[in-house]
């Protein structure tokens, strides 16, 4: 249970960070976000994305605009807000810190096996 919970917590933060990063590159449609995430092996199905996007939008990190599409109904295109930019910046820093922290913590472990695994 504990392991699962930790995994969940780790992924959750990273997933939101990744989504913000993808959107920060410019206006993008939800299914294009998913294809990028699929390549990154973070998400596989589209349905999962919508709750996340809605949550980010509610926190005013994202906004969207409706655009006409050639096939089918108008689409929601997502873009990052200034507040989102700031959060992303903070997250970038945190991520770098985390990478450093994890690297340090795992490589400098006094145990021999860990050294062997990660060096």
């Amino acid at each position: 249970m504990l392991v699962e919970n930790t995994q969940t917590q780790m992924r959750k933060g990273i997933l939101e960070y990744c989504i913000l990063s993808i959107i920060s590159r410019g206006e993008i449609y939800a299914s294009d976000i998913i294809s990028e995430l699929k390549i990154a092996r973070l998400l596989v199905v589209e349905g999962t994305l919508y709750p996340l996007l809605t949550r980010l939008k509610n926190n005013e990190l994202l906004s969207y605009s409706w655009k006409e599409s050639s096939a089918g109904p108008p689409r929601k295109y997502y873009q990052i807000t200034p507040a989102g930019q700031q959060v992303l910046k903070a997250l970038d820093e945190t991520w770098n810190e985390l990478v450093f922290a994890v690297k340090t913590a795992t490589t400098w472990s006094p145990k021999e096996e860990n050294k062997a695994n990660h060096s």
Partner: protein
Amino acid sequence: MNKTIIININGIVFHIEEDAYEVLRSYMIEVKKHFAYTEDSKEIVGDIENRIAEMFSERIVAGKKEVITIADVEEVCAQMGSVKDFERGEEGGYTDTQQTTYGAGYTGTRKLFRDMDDKVFGGVCSGLGHYLDIEALWVRLVMVLLFVFAGTGFLVYIILWIVVPPARTRSDRMAMRGEAPNLQNFKKNFEEEMEGLRGNFTMAGESIKPGLVKAGDALEQLANFIAKAFIILLKIAGALVVFGLCAALVGLIICVVLAIPNWGGDNYGGVYGPDFPLYYIPETYKNMVIIAVFFSLAIPLIALILLAIRMVFNRRLAGSYFGFGLLIIWLVATGTLAYYAIQTAEDFREDATIVKEQVLQSAPQYYIDIHDVNQIKQTDSTTHSVDSIGVIIRSNKRMGKFKNFGSVGISVVKAEQGGAPKLIQEFRARGKDFEVAAKRAGRMVYSINQEEQHLTFDSHSTLPKGELIRDQRIHVKLSLPVGTKLFLSNDADRYMRNLSAWECRDNYPEELREGYTEWLMTSEGLKCMAESANEQEDTRDSIVDNNVDSLGLRKH
């Protein structure tokens, strides 16, 4: 060939095959259920629907492919991800764990539907078969046997046909088979159906198997069949019990409706006759009593019906709050009833008798006749048939002026030495104290009409409208001097209390038996003239015996 349905997703119209629609619908229901408790669930579901619409329109090629098929829906749903995937997604993202097939071991309750795919008349038997998890053939057999031997099979079938809904949609059909209505089962169900279609062509050759192989199975099947038949019989018995209880409830409601005042125009007791217990209850709390009686009888019936349904059909129709509510109402109703019962019983505590004496015009002989107050018209008592009595009594109730209650008792006694012929009327009634009882007795209406030698007695005392029944009785003593002759009409016989009038009548020849019997007041009491003429020597003792009452009265 497939039936298509037109659906509208976010303003775009699609033609979708019926099966595909069922799958899509159940998918969307699951999605909605999943997001029901998340913030902005509407927006999320809307996004998903929108995307589904877009993916559908990508698949439509005008002129070539205009209908969404089940394959399209499955692909779109797979791309969108199942609710299971969402759950995992919320936990964090991609994991490689094998998707478990949930719902396979679903043991939910089956629902009773009529199976429209496997029917002879209305699909009742095959529906019952699904419900009881046995082959429809056996149900049909039982139904036919019931029809032939008990005659009720037909009725049961018709009732079920009317009551049980047909399984119209795929989800109905799945509920009928006890499968959980989720996406996996929809697919399974659909695939099975397709298999079934294909199977029909190949099964023909397979079905002719060597008889020996089947023999072993047959025994096992027989045992299964007997066990299942027993369960079916239990269920049928239970259904009949439920039916009977429902009928009783309906009957009770009808009774209460008919008890509503003014229904029969007599302002009291509805269409019920004078002997109906409502006449024992004072007007002021009569409605309360009707309501209390209704609830104290109806609630146990309802409880029994619900219990029986729960036991037989494994369906719980009402929650525990409902049950508690019923219990409280029932307790209140029975409490009310008990209170009024005690109140009413109190009114029977004392009894009072009022005596009226009346001296008759003296005559050497009297004729006693009876006026039947239950008849509107004075008709010849010998000609009316049973039917016309019914009509008369009913019309009398409708008139509703009086309640006739308590037939008169007439005794004939010997007058004091040298006394005049007298009529002594005793009115008796009960009440909560002597005064009330005496007033009640005083309000009783009874009349005796004298025209020279002819005395006509009312058959019953009557009570004025609104009077309660409190054990009112009327007794009339006819006191005659010695030597007076008395003639009793045929009608009067049954009102005589101290005479063996019928025995006397037996002494008359057949043709005279309908007429008057002749009696004579002697010093030893009233004597039947015909009897003493027939058995002059040895009947004196028996006459004395017959007149024990009048002798006894004389001693007083």
